[in-house]
């Protein structure tokens, strides 16, 4: 069994500015969830906000915080979209 899985991280918009990077490579333990990945990134980038108000996407699809992450996944963290109700 692999000791770590490698994921490709992407940040967008305000989260990109707060992280100070657009892309990065991260290694996490097998069985990690999206929540675990974000927690590891917050350890690295202290300016990242808590996960309320952040959405995660795995391989270009919105994902839940408890969804498992696989080796080679592209994981993106994105703020609410510009939308607005009007």
């Amino acid at each position, binding site marked *: 069994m692999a000791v770590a899985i490698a994921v490709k991280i*992407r940040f*967008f*918009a*305000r989260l*990109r*500015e*707060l992280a*100070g990077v657009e892309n990065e490579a991260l290694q996490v333990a097998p069985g990690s969830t999206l929540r675990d990945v974000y927690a590891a990134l917050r350890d690295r980038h202290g300016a990242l906000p808590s996960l309320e*108000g952040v959405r995660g*996407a795995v391989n*270009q*699809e*919105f994902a839940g915080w408890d969804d498992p992450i696989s080796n080679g996944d592209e994981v*993106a963290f*994105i*703020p*609410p*979209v*510009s*939308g*607005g*109700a009007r």
Partner: protein
Amino acid sequence: MRYDVQTDPIDARELEAAVSHSGAGAICTFSGIVRDSSRGQTVTHLDYEAYAEMAVPQMRKIGQEIKDRWPEARVAMAHRTGHLEIGEVSVVVSVSCPHRAEAFEACRWGIDRLKESVPIWKKEHAEDGTFWIEGEEAKPAGNAG
């Protein structure tokens, strides 16, 4: 069906041409335009940033939602990214249907869903500073870009 995220100006007539056919008695087109004020402040220009590899599939998904509800609809969507001046077109949704009632409804569905689920962000440059617009909230932007 046509879905684009583009830096070039959007021509709404091209999207209408893409959904036009002999059975389409109605084409409804929504154009979103960069406006000169927001939050009571004067806006000078906008920057839009997209997660393009995800935005286009999300648009395609919304097109499918429209087809599920209005099977005769044809849909085209385009969103600009990059620097936009006041008065420029930021987004267009065009829907054709046999009749106008469903064309209006399907177009409204399309733009509302696009605004909530397509990963594109607006950075507003205003007289009181630069802000990322996240739904109803405006959050100060950094200097990095």
